[in-house]
């Protein structure tokens, strides 16, 4: 399919996700606790998408490759080495704002 409003169902039933480096895709997948391989599009210039994918990889949350190394990555991957992803904490932000406005 080309476009769906939400991938939540597909993600839920997947055992492995291979995705581009878009933040939404990465985070949604990680939050569902699914193993993720991020494929970088090296043809896109000024690709700041790389920053998040690279950091997630450094922190051990995702595997990481480009189009030409995808097959090799699939063949040699060890998904058990991936760390479980802890979600962001918007409550910390709310707490911070409350302090700014003297609401705490």
């Amino acid at each position: 399919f080309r476009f769906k409003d939400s991938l939540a169902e597909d993600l839920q039933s997947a055992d492995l996700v291979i995705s581009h480096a878009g933040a939404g895709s990465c985070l949604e997948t990680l939050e569902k606790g699914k193993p993720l391989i991020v494929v970088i599009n090296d043809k896109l210039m000024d690709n700041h998408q790389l920053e998040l994918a690279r950091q997630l990889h450094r922190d051990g949350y995702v595997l990481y490759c480009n189009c030409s190394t995808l097959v090799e990555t699939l063949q040699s991957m060890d998904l058990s080495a991936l760390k479980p992803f802890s979600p962001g904490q918007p409550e910390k932000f709310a707490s911070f704002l409350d302090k700014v406005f003297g609401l705490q």
Partner: protein
Amino acid sequence: TGGHTTEILRLLSCLSESYSPRHYVLADSDKMSEAKIHSFEQKRAETFSKSQFTLDRIPRSREVRQSWISSVVTTLYSILYSLPLTYKRKPDLILCNGPGTCVPVCLSAFLLGLLRIKRTIIVYVESICRVETLSLSGKILYYFSDYFIVQWPDLKKKYPKSVYLGRVV
């Protein structure tokens, strides 16, 4: 737009009803955010009965990869367009997270502050996608915001006046 909307709605998710009414400002070209916002506010209204929000649109200040010179012109136009909106709403707080749309809104509020018409606190939260470098909006608003929040430690090192709370979305 898209990812920015999702992120900002997550930021709003834990805010109390003191942060009300909420005025959303969207780019005129943004088709999908309106639905997400309505959905968020609807859910919120289930818990907080007096929940209020409005939605306004402004011309998009800059297209992706638009040239520098034309960006300055379109942004100036957007600032002029935003001024009456910011003046009308006179927000106590502007919360934004990086789409080009937020720059003219923030700058118009900053201007109203300089003119002693309304002092708005500007809080900018850089997107979670920004680990090592700031977005263009971030680079600009780093100097105009009251609180500039980053979500990764590298950015805190590079931009010492920023606030680091860890990942918040």
